[in-house]
């Protein structure tokens, strides 16, 4: 069967050039970077080089990059790290209603431990209002954490402006850029961020490795204590192969960003156009402030999981904000936050394109979707022809 992967926001295939860089560190290059002999120095150098490459790609210096086990850990480290370091200065955090669970569950954890959290609402396109944000600031505010682009609906936030406000009020600013590093041009100084989360497996790197950019001078508590790795900011023997692959992935993504985006965006427009012929649908997210690879659409009268299963039966990999995919009762908090009713939100579909996708695949998916949506509507008690 034809296999079409349209879920790049969930994870990406490992680029063969990335795998090629990793392989020696999973075979003959065995050293522990903390060891002083040749094997160890080789591993140490590999990590130092990777750090340098990644720092260069986002306008940071090498010492500002902390390697972690992924985007989730980076978000936790950023949020809990600031909370630990600055809890005596204040205990108020500002975030948005549409953050990733790694952010939301971290701030909820802090809420249980005496912190106050403001969850900024978003408009119907998923945009945070910068004025709301500024109004939410109090003397107690120690951290603002707002994602760069949303992983479900693809909306890109005005990070630069938010960063300016944070700077003006002398508040640490963290942004979860898991969906944007490699995809959008990123310079941490232009964006005015103090902390930036990103993850390898969203940009054609391996799963289980990520980084946190930590601006020089920003105080951060430690989440994982132990050996002196990552200049004591994150203990544990380094995932050398993963880090090497991560750097290669970031490097390639940045080098090929323009071409890839152009291609992917064309495919996305083709997909938009194809889907528009299906009646009773609604596109979610901003059309202008939008990730180049993201389409998020709700089909009325049908439920997302059964849509996904039908797509899967046709070899198509996609994602939904339906409650049933996650085993919860409520559909995606993001779709609810942009004002969708539960009914509509249950029928959502996210298609996220990647560099290896083709126009034929787009046409195939549109064709199959038309059939499937019709079939499911025909068996839906909500649909009347």
């Amino acid at each position, binding site marked *: 069967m034809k296999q079409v992967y349209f879920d790049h926001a969930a994870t990406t295939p490992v680029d063969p050039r990335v795998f090629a860089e990793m392989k020696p560190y999973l075979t003959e290059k065995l050293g522990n970077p903390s060891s002083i002999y040749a094997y160890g120095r080789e591993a140490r150098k590999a990590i130092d080089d990777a750090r340098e490459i990644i720092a260069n790609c986002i306008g940071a210096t090498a010492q500002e990059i902390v390697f972690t086990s992924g985007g989730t850990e980076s978000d936790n480290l950023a949020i809990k790290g600031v909370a630990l370091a600055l809890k005596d200065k204040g205990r108020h955090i500002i975030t948005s209603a549409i953050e990733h669970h790694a952010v939301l569950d971290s701030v909820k954890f802090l809420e249980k431990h005496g912190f106050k959290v403001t969850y900024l609402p978003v408009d119907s396109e998923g945009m945070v209002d910068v004025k709301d944000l500024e109004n939410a600031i109090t003397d107690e505010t120690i951290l603002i954490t707002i994602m760069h682009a949303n992983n479900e609906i693809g909306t890109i936030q005005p990070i630069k402006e938010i960063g300016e406000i944070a700077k003006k009020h002398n508040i640490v600013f963290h942004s979860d850029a898991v969906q944007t590093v490699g995809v959008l041009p990123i310079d941490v100084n232009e964006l005015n961020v103090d902390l930036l989360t990103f993850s390898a497996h969203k940009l054609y790197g391996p799963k289980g490795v990520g980084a946190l950019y930590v601006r020089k001078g920003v105080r951060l508590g430690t989440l994982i204590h132990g050996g002196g790795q990552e200049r004591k900011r994150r203990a544990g023997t380094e995932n050398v192969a993963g880090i090497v692959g991560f750097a290669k992935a970031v490097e390639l993504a940045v080098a090929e960003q323009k071409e890839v985006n152009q291609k992917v965006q064309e495919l996305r427009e083709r997909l938009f156009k194809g889907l528009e012929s299906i009646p009773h649908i609604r596109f979610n997210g901003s059309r202008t402030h939008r990730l180049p690879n993201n389409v998020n659409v709700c089909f009325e009268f049908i*439920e997302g999981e*059964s849509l996904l299963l039908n797509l899967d039966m046709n070899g198509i990999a996609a994602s939904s904000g339906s409650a*049933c995919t996650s085993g919860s*009762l409520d559909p995606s908090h993001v779709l609810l936050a942009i004002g969708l009713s539960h*009914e509509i939100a249950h029928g959502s579909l996210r298609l996220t394109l990647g560099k290896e996708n083709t126009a034929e695949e787009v046409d195939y998916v549109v064709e199959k979707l038309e059939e499937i949506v019709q079939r499911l509507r025909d*068996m*839906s*008690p909500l649909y009347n022809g």
Partner: protein
Amino acid sequence: MYSEKVMDHFQRPRNVGEIPDASGIGEVGNARCGDIMKLWIKVEDNVIVDIKFKTFGCGAAIATSSMITELVMGKTIEEAEKITDKAVAEALDGLPPVKMHCSNLAADALQKAIADYKSKKSDIS
């Protein structure tokens, strides 16, 4: 995630549709929760001779709807009344724990349809 039986019923759901002159109709769930199931039964001489469903819901919801129509077809009302959510789940070789909620729906819809049939019958008689 789902058993082969579930996927089979999901892929080729039995008895989809409506019965215009149904003896009883049962509807449960609501769109807010992401599951609505509607069942039509046709009863002759105390036997369910036809049953059809329409479902808005996940894979488990569709499969349990389809399965219950198979379980019920040809049964007497008394036999059908004994069909539980557990029986439906078992007939499907089990459902993932997070989906148990959906399997309740089918049995509930059936009982509602039967109740509807009974109330209509008593109206006439």
